[in-house]
């Protein structure tokens, strides 16, 4: 009996390591650390104009996040029924809206340093969670988990989970609810996002 348990355990362990082999967890964490350091040193702490900061942020955001992948997840089942033109317009509007929103909020991270706490394997292929926390002005630090996807030697962030709240899942819920009620479905959503990005 005991032997059986040990064998199963070893088999399980092998299985897990086989599944993880596709992702280099240490490199994934290094990637996220670099992104956050880049953001803090070259954007938040940089002595440049706000316009320059916004441009740098947009560049960092677009290189670090896989917005194609995220956008497809966020649109969910509506992605399948959307036309190529709608897909393109959605990804563009979604990207711009996010850059706009986060660029404004980014300064809140001033003076805070992410503490990285290792990785957790993911059930999804080629993905891994990088765990971190951010000190808050008062009380306990906030838990921030980064979902990272590896593609060859290339790493991209595909979700950020703050205190258990996944930005991708939240957006997916929000957009599905919106599309269901909107008379022109996805087109209305695209128009609304464009408007928010323009403001």
């Amino acid at each position, binding site marked *: 009996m005991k032997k059986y348990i040990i064998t199963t355990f070893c088999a399980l362990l092998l299985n897990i390591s086989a599944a993880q082999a596709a992702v280099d967890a240490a490199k994934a964490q290094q990637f996220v650390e670099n992104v956050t350091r880049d953001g803090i040193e070259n954007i938040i702490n940089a002595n440049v104009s706000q316009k320059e900061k916004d441009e740098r942020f947009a560049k960092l955001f677009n290189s670090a996040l896989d917005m194609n992948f995220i956008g497809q997840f966020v649109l969910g089942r509506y992605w399948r029924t959307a036309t190529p033109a709608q*897909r393109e317009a959605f990804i563009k509007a979604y990207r711009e809206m996010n850059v706009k929103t986060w660029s404004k909020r980014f300064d809140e991270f001033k003076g805070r340093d992410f503490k990285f706490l290792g990785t957790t394997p993911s059930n999804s292929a080629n993905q891994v969670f990088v765990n971190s926390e951010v000190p808050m002005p008062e009380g306990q630090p906030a838990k921030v988990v980064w*979902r990272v996807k590896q593609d060859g030697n290339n790493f991209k962030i595909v979700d950020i989970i703050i205190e258990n*709240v996944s930005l991708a899942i939240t957006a*997916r819920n*929000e*957009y599905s609810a919106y599309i269901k*009620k909107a008379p022109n479905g996805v087109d209305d959503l695209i128009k609304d996002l464009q408007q928010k990005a323009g403001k």
Partner: protein
Amino acid sequence: MFRRWLGGLALAISVSIAPVWANENHDVYSDDSESALETYNRAMFDFNTGFNHYVLMPVAEFYRDVTSPFVRRRLRNLFDNLQEPVSAGNYLLQAEPKQSGVSLSRFVINSTLGLLGMFDVADAWGLKQEQTNFDDTFAKWCIPDGPFIVLPFIGPSTPRAATSMALGFVMDPVYWSTTNDANVHDKVTYGLAAVYAVVIMEENMDLLNDLEKNSVDFYATMKAAYMQNRKNKGCFNDGAQSSAASYDFDFGIDETTDY
């Protein structure tokens, strides 16, 4: 009175939605929005949003104008300190006697040396603030959360959260120390609840306004965020499960066009 009313309300809602609860698929990832509960929730959510914008936020704005961060911190600490006995009791219910002792010591030290809790003296002595509540306890006991429900004035909740909140109010030291004079009791509990609402709103209104501005369906955003935030509290039956999100992020896309 206000708190008793709250308790009654939570109970009434838990009872009245119990049949809905049994039928509703309350998976946060599903976007099934066709239900009676959803219709009620959206209406109540709109009402609360209006109330916040026209009443609570202006008051919180005023509170922010007339106080300094230092003063606001003292007031917040005062409220946090009143929660320590609730934490101490709940840690016991969660079989964490050591943490319970920490909360109790913090309450005794901060209530006296920390001037009614305004200053966190205990923190410097290595007794860190780690709050818990009935909701954490019920989660530990593996009691299901139930569906998302918007309460009047209070906002996003669930049957488990509402029940926990009502129990928390009753266990608050101010509540049980003033019960022998009904008049004082009412005034104190009403007043404290109102002040607390303003304090919490002052801390959260910037984020709330930002969220509202950036979202195309504020209700759906709040619901998704609130329900996810309540997940992974950890139940005794879970064993050593990873607390990381485990949603499926492979969604069978055949085309990976770049846009």
